[in-house]
Structures are given as C-alpha cells and as structure tokens.
C-alpha cells in the first residue's frame, strides 16, 4: 500500500531528515518570494533555484515534476485561453480566426501559471519529504490544537475507505434495480441514493469513533507526550529565523513599492 504516511516518499536523504518546520518555513518563504517579487518570470526563477535543487537532493524530482504537471496543466491551459485570448485592449501578437492573442494577456497567464506551478511543486516537495504525522506533531508543539491535527491526519487515511464505501453503495443500489448506466439524466437521478447512505452511514461511524477516541483519553487535559521524536538543531532554528526575516523583508519591500507612489 503506497501512501502510508499520506504522500510521503520513503528516501534516506538529508532533506527527509530535516525538522518538518524547517521544510514548511522554507517552502512558504519560496512561495512568498515567488509571488511577491514583481516580474513575469520571478515564480519560475524561484522554482529553478529554490525548489528544483532541493527536490533533486531529496531524490523526489521526477515525482514532483510529474505530479506538478498533472495538477497544474489544466489551470495553465484555462489561464492562457481566458487571459491570452480575451484580454481587453492590449497589443495583438497573432490573429487566430475571430480571436486575437494579446501580449499582455499572455504575460499575465505566464505569470499566473508560474505561481500555480510554484505553489503545487512546493506543496508536493514538502509532503514528499515530510511524514504528515511528524508535520502535525511539529505544529502541535507550536500550539496547534490536537483536534485539528487529528482531523487532518484521519482525513488522509479515511478518504480511500470512503471511496471503497461509495463503490459498495453503488453496487447495493444497482442490485436493487437502480439504473446508473445510460444518459446524464439517469446518472443524476442515481446520485441521491448514493450520497444519502454515504452521509448517514458516516454519522454512525463517527459516533463509534468518538467513543473509541474517548476510551483512548483523547479529551484528557494536561500535558501529552509523543512516541515520535522530532530532531531539531540550533542550526535549523537559526535558518528558520533567517528565512522568516528574509520573508518579512520581502513583504516590507513590496509594501514600500505599493505605498511609495501613493505618498508621492
């Protein structure tokens, strides 16, 4: 079974061994810089110098590339079509029948696509190199409520189960004569008999799970411990502070750029 730890890809690399927060902060700072620094190509530059080398060291670059393309391509295509062809005014680059491709629209689409690619690849890099239970533990130690951490982690594992359950429900209703094959209308009509049991059945499950959690002292107040151990170093803490300072500098600079013309 792949995806035992969410999206985590098991590799023995230095990147995998880093403290989850170090990776989280790094990825967020990359995103921030790529999004905030003006220029059409800035997201791509951050991608090339910020994300790609790290993914390479962590030996997850092929996975990052493959799944970034899979996720980002539909967005990119729609952006290029909508913004490139339907930009009002602007310089015409090429006439395509009744449509005209505008330079400004195209540039806007390229920047937008870059931002999406950067966000997706950053998210994948984090998740491929970080076990989600370790990430949630790190966040809990920083004050994230246990209930939120529980919901995130259990959702990751329950989704495949949900899909199997949906299939069983589909089978049960078809066996009672519900037509699910054929026209769009037939399939729409079949939707309710699928969704209702999925939701009602989940309520029964949730009640039992709530009891099971209570038995395991989930609502008990007071200090909790953890079997998992996260390795942090002074060096990593310093790096995280530096990254955050850098991010704040970028935000400040960007704010200044926005504010200056208005004050002048």
């Amino acid at each position, binding site marked *: 079974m792949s995806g035992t730890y969410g999206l985590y890809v098991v590799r023995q690399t230095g990147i995998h061994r880093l403290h989850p927060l170090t990776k989280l902060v790094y990825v967020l700072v990359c995103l921030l810089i790529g999004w905030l620094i003006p220029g059409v190509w800035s997201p791509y530059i951050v991608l090339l110098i910020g994300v790609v080398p790290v993914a390479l060291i962590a030996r997850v670059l092929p996975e990052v590339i493959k799944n970034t393309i899979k996720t980002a391509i539909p967005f990119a295509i729609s952006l290029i079509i909508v913004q490139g062809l339907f930009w009002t005014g602007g310089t015409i680059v090429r006439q395509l029948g009744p449509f005209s491709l505008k330079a400004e629209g195209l540039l806007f689409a390229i920047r937008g696509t870059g931002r999406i690619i950067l966000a997706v690849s950053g998210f994948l890099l984090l998740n491929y190199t970080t076990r989600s239970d370790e990430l949630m533990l790190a966040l809990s130690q920083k004050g994230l409520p246990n209930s939120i951490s529980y919901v995130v982690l259990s959702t990751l*594992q329950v989704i495949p189960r949900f899909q199997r359950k949906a299939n069983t429900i589909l089978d049960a209703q078809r066996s009672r004569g519900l037509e699910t094959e054929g026209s769009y209308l037939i399939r729409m009509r079949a939707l309710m008999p699928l969704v209702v049991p999925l939701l009602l059945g989940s309520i029964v499950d949730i009640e*039992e799970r709530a009891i099971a959690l209570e*038995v395991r*002292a989930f609502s*008990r107040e007071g200090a*909790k*411990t953890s079997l998992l151990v996260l390795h942090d170093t002074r060096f990593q803490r310093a790096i995280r502070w530096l990254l955050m300072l850098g991010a704040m500098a970028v935000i400040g600079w960007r704010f200044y750029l926005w504010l200056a013309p208005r004050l002048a």
Partner: protein
Amino acid sequence: MIRLDRVSYSYPRATSPALNDLSVDIPAGQFCAVIGANGAGKSTLCSALAGFVPHFYRGRLTGTVEVAGIDIAASSLAELAGTVGLVFSNPFNQITGARFSVRDEVAFGLENMGVPRAEMETRIDYILQFAGLAGLAERPPFALSGGQQQRLAIASVLVMRPRVLVLDEPTSQLDPVGSREVFTVLRDLAATDEATVVLAEQKLEWVAAFADRVLVLHEGRLVADGLPGDILASPDLQRYGLEPTRYTRAARAAQAAGLRPEGDTLPVTLEQAAEFFA
C-alpha cells in the same frame, strides 16, 4: 472491582428501560461473561461500565455504578479513560486513523495520558508481543485484516493498563479465523488474572471455554448469575432467547431418547461432549 447497585437506565426518547434494577458485584481479576438476546441490555451494560452511559448517550441513570472505587455518574469520560477500557464490535471504527503504524496507533492512548516516552516503549513492546502483533508493528493499521485490527484495538486499550476491560461482542463482525485470533488473546488475558474482564458475547462455546462466571440479561434485567457449566446447560436458556450449543442439545436429545441417563451434567464444549458420549 465493579459494583452495580439497583441500576436502571433509559436512553433518551426510549419508552422502556434498557437496564432494569441491576445489582451485581464483580471481584478483581474475575473474567465475567454477559450473555443475552439482542436488545437484552448487554451493550448498555458495557457502556455503563465505561461511563458512556450516561456521559455520552445522556438519558436517565438511577442507582450506582462503581468501577475501581470510582462512582461513574460523578466522574467524567476523560477521568475514566485509562481506568476502564472498552472494545466493541467494529474493528475499523476503533482505529484512530491519525497514526500511520501499528506501533504509533498503540501509543495514541499513552501519549494522551502523558506517559514518558521510555516507559511507552517498554509497555508497547510488551503488549504487541502479548497480542501477537509484534511482527506487524510497522504496518499501517488499515492494511491489517479484521482479526488483526481487533487485536490492535484490544492492545491499544490494554496498553493503558485499565483496571477493568469491557469487551462488547468483539468477534461479531469477524470471520472464524479472526474470531479465533481474538479469543486466543482473551484466553491469555483470562489466564493472567491481571485485569477484571467483562465480555458480552453470543458465542456460548467460547464463553464456556474461559469465563469464570456468566451473567444472563433478559429485557434489561439480570435473570441468572452463576458458573458457566451450570448456566449454559440450564433448560431456562431458551426462555431468554438464547440457544444452547449443539453439544448441549445433542446431549439433551440423547437423554430424552433414553440413550444417556438423566441427571448427568450436560456438556457445553466439544471436549465435554466427547467425554459425555464416550
């Protein structure tokens, strides 16, 4: 260890009580089976011992439920966790889903109790061994079979060292292989005498095999209380919607046909039956 004094309970909106004037004392270390038809009150009794009646289901509870010296009604679920452990039928719903390996799943309760890490390690190793899960420690919980998941649920509760372990039909959703796995763990547990165990169960053959004592519930009332051999072969069983094992029935038929003398103790298990008919 467990003391019920004139306990009655009704679920919210229910017209008749689920438990009706129940009084019973269960001493420490006893392995006590609770049998009865569906709706007789077995699950409600289990819930009451673990505090989910009334703290989770609400409704009206009268009388006193006392477990390990704690008055359940005056306590809270958070306080009871760790003192009373509860295991129920559906193995899937007892797995937290928030831990990615069997070992981490077992740790969940201990983490919430704030048990130091070094102690956690020792206790987890011991319990995984006990439940026959040591070889599966690094596996994802949801990749286990039903019987393995149920053993994991039992281990996850036992590791918290509850004074009382309550099991509500722990094998009713398992296949024979899974049931046997779980009963093997229960048999080992009965042998240790460490915990006081209350087991609600339909499979009388298993009840006969290792319970020290059997309680029979019928329509929320305690109608019989005694040794397994006496209770399970009693002619009253059918009055309470319970079917004696086929061994008991065959023995009774043999007596009726004059093939065996009346008055012999009726068998409940295969071994006893083999002796009876030898």
